[in-house]
């Protein structure tokens, strides 16, 4: 396993990029800590695949260096980098047994047969296929084949990193839970450096120690799931993480109070804000419907999504979504909404503003 360093890295698919807009991946400096599990999250076209391809060596960056444990590997091939990859669709040899498929990377490297047998058994058990190790892969379900692909990606203990590119896309929802659990367990047991690319927030948040959120070729936030939820660094993170995403309202901020169309909204801390566009952001989880307190809203729709309700409301043309508990009554007279002050964030030109008395653990 290795620490992976991105040094001054950027990439443009154009021969002579002239402005920042020409870069599919904008300048980035980052250390991927040895043994951590990362997710790269963003919508299609955000640059996450470009970044993954640079790390794996399928693409050579137009600027900057990539280092594995301090050693420059920018110009080396994928094979020389000694990494394992798992792709969106299963890659298995149909004519081979499950055991042969799992053993393949070890055999290629001329490992000791006793070691191979033992290791394959271990991986087979881990992916829950020890009973079918001697079955031919032909005719297995897509789920089973993807498990084998995951197992094969994990079979070598000496790889520098494990890269996953949307590995659970073809998997049924129920099986996703099982496979994700196994991946998580494998990471816990073996401590590989893992980088997992996905556009699915649940997958990213549940898999990773740290999530790297990308938007328009730029890394907008790297943080734990909790940080992305509690203190989104950019309004895009607020929108992209969470279902529904964070509510954003234009505001004037004066100390510990925000003014939204003349209504005072208390904040959890004091702010000094400058910027052309000032907004407050509050997640639906921290909004409460009331009868006589808070912003007056119009309720447009109430969706029963099982374990909770999503109340879709609007305030002067701005959408406000509110999450209410499963059993909670939403009376016709509940037309006001309050925000939990501790969970209202302030944004200037889309970037989060740290409060004066910065709370512990927050970046300025």
């Amino acid at each position, binding site marked *: 396993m290795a620490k992976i360093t991105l040094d001054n890295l950027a990439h443009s698919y154009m021969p002579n990029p002239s402005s920042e807009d020409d870069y599919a991946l904008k300048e980035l400096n980052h250390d991927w800590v040895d043994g951590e599990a990362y997710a790269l999250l963003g919508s299609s076209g955000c640059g996450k695949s470009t970044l993954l391809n640079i790390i794996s060596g399928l693409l050579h960056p137009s600027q900057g260096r990539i280092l594995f444990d301090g050693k420059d590997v920018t110009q080396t091939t994928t094979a020389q980098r000694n990494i394992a990859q798992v792709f969106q669709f299963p890659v298995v040899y149909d004519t081979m047994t499950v055991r042969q498929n799992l053993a393949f990377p070890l055999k290629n490297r001329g490992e000791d047969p006793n070691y191979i047998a033992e290791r394959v058994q271990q991986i087979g058990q881990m992916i829950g296929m020890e009973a079918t190790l001697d079955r031919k892969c032909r005719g297995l379900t897509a789920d089973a084949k993807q498990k084998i692909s995951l197992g094969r990606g994990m079979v070598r203990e000496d790889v520098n990193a494990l890269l996953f590119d949307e590995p659970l896309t073809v998997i049924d929802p129920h099986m996703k839970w099982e496979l994700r659990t196994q991946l998580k367990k494998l990471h816990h047991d073996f401590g590989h450096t893992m980088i997992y690319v996905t556009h699915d927030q649940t997958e990213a948040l549940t898999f990773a120690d740290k999530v790297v959120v990308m938007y328009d070729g730029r890394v907008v936030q790297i943080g734990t799931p909790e940080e992305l939820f509690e203190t989104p660094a950019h309004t895009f993170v607020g929108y992209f993480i969470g279902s529904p*995403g964070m509510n954003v309202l234009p505001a004037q901020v004066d100390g510990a109070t925000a003014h939204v169309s003349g209504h005072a909204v208390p904040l959890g801390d004091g702010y000094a804000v400058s910027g052309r566009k000032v907004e407050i952001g509050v997640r639906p989880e921290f909004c409460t419907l009331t009868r006589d307190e808070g912003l007056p809203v119009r309720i447009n729709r109430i969706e029963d999504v099982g374990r909770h309700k999503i109340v879709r409301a609007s305030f002067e043309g701005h959408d406000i979504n509110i999450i209410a508990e499963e059993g909670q009554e939403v009376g016709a007279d509940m037309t006001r909404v309050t925000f939990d002050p501790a969970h209202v964030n302030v944004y200037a030109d889309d970037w989060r503003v740290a409060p004066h008395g910065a709370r512990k653990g927050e970046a300025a």
Partner: protein
Amino acid sequence: MTLELRGVSKVVGGQTHIHPTDLTLDKGTMNVLLGPTTAGKTSLMRLMAGLDVPNTGKIFWQGEDVTGMRVQDRKVAMVYQQFINYPSMSVYDNIASPMRIIGKSRDEIDAAVRKSADLMKLTPMLDRKPLELSGGQQQRCALARALVKDAGLVLLDEPLANLDYKLREELRIEIPKIFEEAGSIFVYATTEPEEALLLGGNTATLWQGRVTQFGPTPEVYRQPVDATTARVFSDPPMNFLQMTKRGDALHFGDGQNAPASGKLAQLQDGTYTAGFRPNHLEINKHSGEAMAFSAELVVTELTGSETFVHLNHDGARWVGLFHGVHKLTIGEALTVYLDPKHVYIFDEDGSLVAPASYALAA
């Protein structure tokens, strides 16, 4: 306007894809077919559309037998997971194409295309080619084409499965609104319970070629008729626990006992399976009646606002979903709580014998 399936079945190469099925869908309704891959969703849609002829049973459209009628002669539109557009035509011509085929007048076509494009927020893109659009816009173009036909029956086979989840979120809000306006019968296949809940309407749960239940979506979710339906309509998966009822006590597989209070007191003595959803398992004891279970923590997953715990309870895999972020250690012994009001009781055949009492109130 109704679509009625009476005893419809489909056997392919000796394999039963659809067991005899009765189903009636009404005008202006959204009907979700929910089930895992290979449950029979697409097979059932193909029968509804007339793309396949059933082996047994009949299909009625507004009371008229259309069982053998070709798909071309029916008023049906279908949208697939892999969006299909004509790449060389503009968005306008793509949307107009089904109306041109049936020879509508230029004015009629124009009015319908503009209305449909407006609903799908494609008006500024009518002159573009599909490949110049984003994935979400391409799928909206395919949806607009399905709407423009004014088909009585619109079949959508996992139409959002290939899109980014934020786009799906957007379209899931838009789609039910559009359906309300259009007044057709909509059938929407999905593998995801959450999608069914967001779409609302009615849901038919499918499992191994059988419709296990059909009714208003929240009702099927909260009052499943059997353990199979409950399992299909639960993500993360429902948890199960074996138990025996003897006299006024419940005895669980792990040696625990609880009083058989409330409606459970009326159960006949015997062996049952208790089922409960992950979000009803709790890490703190909120109610005096809550039962306590000890389990080993296998894995935790944090979403930032919630914690998923994967547990090993007496050899069974359970999933719990707790509010807030809980930092727990893998391998640690946990005590988790469950309020009896959240427990469904199934008999040995999996049929529901007692619904969770909270669900009757909800």
